[in-house]
C-alpha cells in the first residue's frame, strides 16, 4: 500500500509499505478515504517528540471504510464508513470507565503519562497513523463510529480531533456567562475553541496570533476580537488594558510546543529540543489571566520539562486545566451543534492535497504558505 513515511526532521515521503494486518481480535483494518495534517503533526515533523522513528506513518485525523474486522468485533462490519477518534482506548480500564479516554492505560506500553494516539511516535504507543491507504484500528468496538448519513465527510474528519479538542478546551475553561475568554493561537484548534467559547456563554472572545490571515479567519469564522502580538511591545500588557487591568477570566493555550514570540524560548525548544516545548503562549496565558482565573491547555507539549512560569500561576491562585481531548465523549453534543448550524467544521479547510504530494502538504502547512489553515489529504475514493 502507499503510505506517508517519516524520513527525519522536515522530511517525509510516500512509499510502499506492507498493508496492516489484524493483530488483536478487536482490531479492524480501515481503508482511509481522507486524512488531515494536524498542527501537532508538525511537532513530529520538526523532530520535537522523543522516539519518533524513521519509517513511521503519521496521521491521527482520518476517516475511512472498514475493510476487515477481527474475530471479536461486534459493532462494525466490512463496508461501514467510519470516523475514528485520534485516541486509541480500550473502554474498560480505570480511566476509560470514568470517561478519560485519552488517558487509557491499556494501549501504550511506552509511557504511562499519555494514552495511545495513531501515528504519534512511540511515546504515544508506536501505532502507525492514517496518512496512508490502510490503517490498523485497535478496539474497533470502542473507538470508531459509523458516520451519520447527514454528515459531510470533511466535517466528520474535523470531528476526529480539531473540533472536539477546541470544544474541550473551552469546557476546561469552566466559562460562566459573561466571561472574557482569550485564546492564544488562531490555528484550527484555536478557531474551534473561540467558536465554542460563545456556546458556553462567553461575553467576549479574543484571539491572539502573529499570522494576519488566521486572525482574519478568527474574526469571520469565530466572531472574535483579534490581536496580532507582533504589533505590540508586550501582549500581556495589552490584555490587561483591554480588560480594564483585571485580566481575562479564562485563557486557552491552543498553540503548544512551537509557540513563537520569544526567540530564546523558541530556539531552545523547537530547534535545539532542550525543552519539551516552547511555553511562550502558556506563560502569556498565565500572565494574561486574572487572579483566580482559569488557564486551559489543549496545545500539545513534549514530555521533557519546559520553562513555565509556575510561580506566577501559584501566586495568582490560578486553576490550570489540561488534557488530551477524550474525543468520542464530545461527539453526541457536537453532532447536535452541527445539525443546528452552530458549528460548520469544514469552513476551516483551506487545502486538499493528494497523498502522493503529502511532502508538499507538510511544507505548505509548516511554512504557513498560501494562507494555509487546515490541509486535508485525499487518499482514496469514498
Amino acid at each position, binding site marked *: 500500500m502507499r503510505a506517508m513515511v517519516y524520513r527525519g526532521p*522536515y522530511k517525509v515521503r510516500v512509499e510502499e509499505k506492507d498493508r496492516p494486518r489484524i493483530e488483536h481480535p478487536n482490531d479492524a483494518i480501515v481503508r482511509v478515504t481522507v486524512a488531515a495534517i494536524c498542527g501537532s503533526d508538525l511537532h513530529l515533523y520538526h*523532530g520535537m517528540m522523543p522516539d519518533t522513528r524513521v519509517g513511521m506513518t503519521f496521521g491521527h485525523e482520518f476517516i475511512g471504510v472498514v475493510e476487515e474486522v477481527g474475530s471479536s468485533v461486534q459493532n462494525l462490519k466490512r463496508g461501514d464508513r467510519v470516523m475514528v477518534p485520534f485516541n486509541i482506548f480500550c473502554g474498560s480500564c480505570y480511566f476509560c470507565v470514568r470517561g478519560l479516554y485519552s488517558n487509557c492505560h491499556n494501549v501504550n506500553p511506552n509511557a504511562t503519562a499519555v494514552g495511545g494516539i495513531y501515528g504519534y511516535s512511540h511515546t504515544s504507543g508506536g501505532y502507525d497513523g492514517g496518512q496512508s491507504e490502510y490503517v490498523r484500528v485497535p478496539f474497533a468496538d470502542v473507538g470508531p463510529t459509523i458516520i451519520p448519513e447527514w454528515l459531510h465527510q470533511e466535517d466528520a474528519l474535523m470531528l476526529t480531533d480539531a473540533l472536539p479538542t477546541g470544544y474541550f478546551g473551552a469546557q476546561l475553561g469552566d466559562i460562566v456567562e459573561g466571561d472574557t475568554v482569550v485564546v492564544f493561537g488562531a490555528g484550527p484548534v484555536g478557531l474551534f475553541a473561540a467558536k465554542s467559547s460563545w456556546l458556553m456563554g462567553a461575553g467576549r472572545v479574543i484571539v491572539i496570533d502573529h499570522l494576519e490571515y488566521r486572525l482574519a479567519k478568527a474574526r469571520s469564522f469565530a466572531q472574535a476580537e483579534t490581536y496580532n502580538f507582533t504589533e505590540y511591545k508586550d501582549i500581556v500588557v495589552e490584555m490587561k488594558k483591554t480588560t480594564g487591568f483585571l485580566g481575562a477570566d479564562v485563557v486557552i493555550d491552543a498553540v503548544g510546543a512551537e509557540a513563537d514570540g520569544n526567540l530564546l524560548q523558541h530556539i531552545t525548544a523547537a530547534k535545539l529540543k532542550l525543552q519539551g516545548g516552547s511555553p511562550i503562549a502558556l506563560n502569556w496565558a498565565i500572565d494574561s489571566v486574572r487572579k483566580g482565573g482559569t488557564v486551559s491547555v489543549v496545545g500539545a507539549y513534549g514530555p521533557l520539562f519546559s520553562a513555565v512560569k509556575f510561580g506566577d500561576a501559584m501566586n495568582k491562585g490560578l486553576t490550570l486545566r489540561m488534557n488530551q481531548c477524550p474525543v468520542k465523549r464530545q461527539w453526541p453534543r457536537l453532532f447536535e451543534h452541527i445539525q443546528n448550524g452552530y458549528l460548520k467544521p469544514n469552513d476551516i479547510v483551506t487545502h486538499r492535497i493528494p497523498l502522493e504530494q503529502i511532502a508538499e502538504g507538510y511544507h505548505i502547512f509548516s511554512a504557513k504558505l498560501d494562507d494555509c489553515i487546515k490541509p486535508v489529504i485525499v487518499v482514496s475514493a469514498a
Partner: protein
Amino acid sequence: MPYTAKKPLAPPSSPELRARIPGWGADLDPANRPSVPRERYDPDVTGAHWDLPEQQPETRPRERSIEHQRLTPVFGTSTPPKGISGAMRRYAYGRFSEARAAHWLTLIAADRVDAVGSHLRSSLTLHPDNPVTETGVLSEWRHKPVSSRAGSRRADLHHNWMDPFIVVGPWIAAAGIIWLAARTLARVGRR
C-alpha cells in the same frame, strides 16, 4: 478598575450576544457540557465487552516503560528498534523512568542517530533519500512564497533561516562518518 469590587468592563448583554452569535449560550448550563464533570463513572457506554482486553501476541520483545507493571494488552507494532538507535532506545526504556530527563534525552539522541543511519542506508538502495522532494520545498513556487512572507510581521521569520541547517545536518553528519571511515580504512590499508 479592579481596585474596586465591580468588574471593570461589562460585557454585552446576553440577548445581544444571542442575537449576534449563532448558538450563543447553548452550553451555558454545565449539564450540557459533555466533559463536565471531568470523571463520570459509566462502564456501560464505551462498547467494551471485556473486563481486561485479551493480550495482543508479543511477537518480539516489546520495549516498555518501567513505570508499567506489565506489557499493555494492546500496543503499536510500527518500526521496531534497530541498529545503534534501537540499542539506545532499549537502554532508555530499560534503565530510566519517564520521570528522568535522561530517558527522553536518550530517546531524542536515538532519533538523530536513526535519521543519520537511515540516510546512510538509503544511499545504498535504489530509493535514496532526496532532500529536495522530501522537504516539499518544490511546493514553494506554486503557493505564494513571497506574498506569504513579505510585508508581514510573522514572528517565525526570525528563525526560519535555521531550518535548512536542521534539514542538511544529518547529511553532513553522514558524509562526515563516511569520510572518517574511508580515512581509517585507507590508513589501515597503508600499514
